[in-house]
Every structure is written in C-alpha cells, then in structure tokens.
C-alpha cells in the first residue's frame, strides 16, 4: 500500500515537472503523419513494422523483441515514465491501456501536444483487425495495414480449413507448473475454440473473471485431456517433467505423446504473427484425431 502511495506521489511530481516543460515541447502537431513514434506495446511494435511504419518508429519498450531490427530501449511499457518518453521528442506514443495509470499518462502527454494511441487488449479476431487498421490510419499506412489484414485472414482461413477438428478433442493449456490455465473466454482460448478443441479449464471459468484460473492437479487427472499445450516450455517444462508429476503418467496427452511446446511470446501477442500461431496449432494437432 505504501508502495502505491509513494509511487503515485512520485508520478504526480513527475507530471507537474513535465507540465512545466510544456512551453518547450516540439509543436509539430500540425503535421498529420507522425515521424517519431514510440511503441510501448510488443504487439503494436510487430504490427507497426508489418504495415510499413517501421521507419517512423524511433523507440520501442524493453519487451518489444520482435522484429529484431526494432529500436529496443529500456522504456517500460508496464510502468511508463513521462519524462523518459519526452526525452525521445516523440509525436505519437502507442500506450497499452493496461499500463500503470495509463489514462493519467495519456492526459499528461496530450497536454504536451503529443498524440497518444491507446491500445486495448483485443478479445477476438475482429478486434485485432480493427486495431491493425486503426494503427494504419494513425501512422499513415492505411494500405499497408489492409494488406496485413488480408494476408492474416487468408492464412488463418487456410489453417482452420486444414486443422479444424470434426469432433471435439479435449486439451489443457498450461501457463505454469502450478497449473494456471486460460479458459475459452481469453484470447488464446478463442484460438483453440476455433479449432473445435474442448478446453478442460472452462468448468473453472467462474474462478477468475479474466479467464485465468488455477486448476487442481487432481481435477486435471480426472479430466484426462488428450492434448497439453505448454506455454511454460521456456521455463523447462516438457513431457518428461509432466510425466514425473504424481498421477500424470496415465493422462492421455502424455501416454499418447501429445504434449506440444508453444513458441515463446507469439501466443501472447495480437499482431500479424497471430496468423503464424494459427498455422502452428494447425500443424501440431494435424495428426491427432
């Protein structure tokens, strides 16, 4: 509790400092096409580079590790610092709506005549497309955005055509080894749902309004999923470590060796690589009937 108070006190001090610098801010608001963009969202960074706005981007946050030529910095997307942002003399900032005090920071930046694009985590595919085209409009890359969307739609359609199951197959999506999972209400859950996979986390949906409940080991064994997707493969989990967990060696996904290690980052980003993720799922479940 103290942390928050000192944090907000610090931020207020910071904002007032920033406001006092108002008269020194660059006043190129008349220019409609932003040339100095800061992206504080790994998903938006991927989108910006895909739609052809890469050359306008001068800085991206510390988690924007794709594409590799993005100008990665120490800027925090999670806890943005107004003064650090001003240092780059930006004319457009992509801000994640889930960032700490996102709305206050947006107001402060707008008072400094810096445009802010507030990016909200989409909860379905059409929202993803809307966001990509909105980014296209905001950066003057409307055609590029349209191409990306068309391309994604084609890829996803093809992936679903080849991969969608005729009959439901049960699966478990593992976020970590304490069995946090994602229900069909989440973005990733909807991807699986598109393939007609049955999520064993859904009966626990009421436990977390955001759709990320922690399941019991005993329940998982009882549910006996036929596929397990590991979002924690990067933390060392694999079919070997899973089989060692008490009672798991008889779980169908493990006896049939249907444990799939998900690629890093891609499943949690709602940019153009989402289409690659659909293709990945289609390929990895192709042989499971």
């Amino acid at each position, binding site marked *: 509790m103290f942390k928050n108070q000192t944090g907000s006190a610090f931020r207020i001090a910071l904002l007032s400092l920033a406001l006092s610098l108002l008269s020194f801010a660059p006043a190129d608001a008349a220019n409609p096409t932003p040339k100095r963009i800061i992206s504080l969202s790994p998903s938006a960074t991927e989108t910006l580079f895909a739609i052809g706005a890469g050359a306008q981007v001068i800085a991206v946050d510390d*988690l924007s590790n794709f594409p590799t030529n993005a100008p990665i910095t120490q800027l925090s997307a999670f806890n943005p610092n107004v003064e650090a942002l001003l240092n780059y003399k930006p004319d457009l900032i992509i801000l994640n709506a889930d960032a700490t005090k996102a709305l206050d920071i947006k107001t402060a930046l707008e008072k400094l005549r810096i445009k802010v694009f507030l990016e909200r985590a989409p909860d379905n595919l059409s929202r993803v497309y809307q966001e990509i085209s909105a980014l296209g409009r905001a950066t003057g890359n409307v055609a590029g955005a349209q191409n990306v969307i068309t391309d994604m739609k084609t890829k996803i359609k093809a992936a679903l055509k080849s991969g969608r199951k005729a009959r439901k197959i049960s699966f478990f999506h593992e976020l970590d080894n304490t069995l946090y999972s994602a229900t069909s209400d989440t973005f990733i859950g909807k991807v699986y749902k598109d393939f007609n996979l049955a999520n064993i986390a859904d009966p626990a949906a*009421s436990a977390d309004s955001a759709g990320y409940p922690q399941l019991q080991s005993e329940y998982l064994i009882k549910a006996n999923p036929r596929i397990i997707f590991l979002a924690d493969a990067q933390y*060392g989990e694999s079919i070997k470590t899973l089989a060692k967990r008490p009672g798991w060696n008889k779980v169908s996904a493990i006896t049939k060796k249907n444990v799939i290690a998900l690629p890093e980052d891609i499943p949690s980003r709602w940019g153009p690589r989402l289409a690659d993720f659909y293709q990945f799922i289609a390929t990895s479940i192709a042989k499971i009937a």
Partner: protein
Amino acid sequence: MKLKGNESALSPIWNWKITALSFALLFFVAILAISFGPVPLSFQKILRTLFGLSGGLTGQERTLLIDLRLPRALLAALVGAALATSGAVYQTVFRNPLADPYLLGAAAGAGLGATIAITSAGADLYNLLPIFSFIGAILAVLVSFFISGKFFAEPNSLLLSGIAVGSFATAVQTYLQQRNSSSLRPVYSWILGELTVANWQIVTWSAIYILIALTILVTVSKQLDGLMLTDDEAYSLGINPNRLRVIAVIAATLATATAVSASGLIGFVGIVVPHLVRGITHRVTNRGLLTIALVGASFLVLADLGARTLLSPAELPIGVITAFVGAPFFLVVLRKKRLVTQ
C-alpha cells in the same frame, strides 16, 4: 504478556488432556481433508488404504490419494505447525504479542529469493525456487542480527533492524519484479502462498527441518517462560536468557524458512493460532507449545481443504482463507478472553 489474575494462573501448567485432544483434532481434520476433492473416493476405501487393509483403493484412485491428497495434507500440517510454533516463540522472545514468524525479515528475504529464482531467465534457477527462498529467509534474519549488533541486549533494536532489512529486501524484490513484468503473476501467487506443489520429496525435506526445529523448541519450552520475566530474574532461575533467545530464534527461523520455501507466504497463522490456543486454554505459558503446533497444523489442513474445494475445480490461494477465516475467529476469541479476564 503478563499472567492475568484469574484461575488460569492456578490451573495445571501442562495438561495432557488438551494435548491429546489437539492430537485427535489434527487426526480428524486430516482424514476429512483427504476425503474431499474433485474426484469422489469411497471413504471406507480411503481408510482401508491408509491402514494397509485389503480392499483399499487401486490404480489411479490410489495415486490420487497417496501422491496428491496425502502429501498436500501433510505439508499443510507441517507448515501450519512450523508457523504457529515460531509465532508463539517470537512472541515470547520479543515480549510482544504482535510478533509473527516473518518479523525479522524472513518473509521479505524469502520473497526476494523466490523473485530472483522466478525472474532469472534460465530454467535452472526456476526449479531452485525453494532453495532460493530458504536462503533468502535465513540471510535476511542473519543480516538483521548483525546490524542490531548487541543481539538481545535490546530486543527492540533487533525488531527494528528486522523491519528495516525486510523493507530493503521488499524494495529490491519490487524492483526486480518491475523490471520483469512477465514474472508478476508467478511472484504474486507465490506471495499469497500455495500448497499446490506438494509432493513426497518436498514433504520429506520439510519434515526433517521442521521436526528438528520443533523438537528443539518444545524441549526448551519450559525455560522459555523464563523470558517473560526480567533478565535478572531469569538468571536467578538458572536460565541464560541471551543464549536461550539465540537458540529459540534460530530454531524458529529454521522452521519458518522451511515453511516459507515449501509453500510461499501464508499469513496470519503465526499470530492467530498461538493467541487462539492461549485464549481457549487460558494458558499463557510456553508449555502449551506442542498444543499450539498441533492446532496450527489442524488450522492449515482445514484452510487448505477450503482452498481446494471452495472454487473447485479451480484453486483459491490458501493465504486468502487463513486471513478470511482466521481474522474474525480471532476477534471473537479476543473479545471472549477480555470478558473472562475482566
């Protein structure tokens, strides 16, 4: 923590009936805990399996009982006993009814250790989380000791240095967490406490450390009462108060560090249970330490049953239950106790 002037001061100091009763309570609660879960198991078969009789559970049902429910109930019992006993001992050593097992920075140190393990990118450290949090807890307490210098000449200075070390460790932990925002959820769920990772390996090594620590504490419990007097009075009873305090704090810290590294930060047990037992039995002496351990074990086994069943098939963090149930219950006891002693 003075002896209040009612009949409790005159009643026998150690009562085998209460100890036997708390043993029975723990046994009953443990049986209850392993009987419930998402998969319904026959109660009769559970008992037959436990006592090695024929006609027990077989195959997967047996695995569920033996490898999932049993280690979890045992770990809950061990952690509950460790936290409750350490809390009672800290309260005596610091002559402070608000002292809890996390007082000397053990919780913050363990939190820092766990966060280091979680935020380190490599898979290797992540698996070492229990060891990191154990070392973090021990280090924080050691640093508190060295900074305060005179050990126990001034219990309050140790207490203050413990608070300072704890705040420092929390600051470093928060910094690491902010720099690795993807670690927020695992760190947060560790802080709330979790017994979901229980397996026989964790139960075995926590049992070794916790039982050693508890044996030491119960053995010295008779002398611990001497710490409620002034140091001069303690010396006249043949007790070396400073040596006793060091032994007691080391043993309590070992128990706490083990509990924390096995299950995260489960709050409230260390304060509620000792006062609860003292309130119900009207015994303020440390000879009730064994009872406190047993009731602490029962309390946490019961809380974990709630954690597993209330949101089933999802989990509820056990720390939420211990405080949600513990706090009101504690207030009732506190009020009754005051009515009795007035």
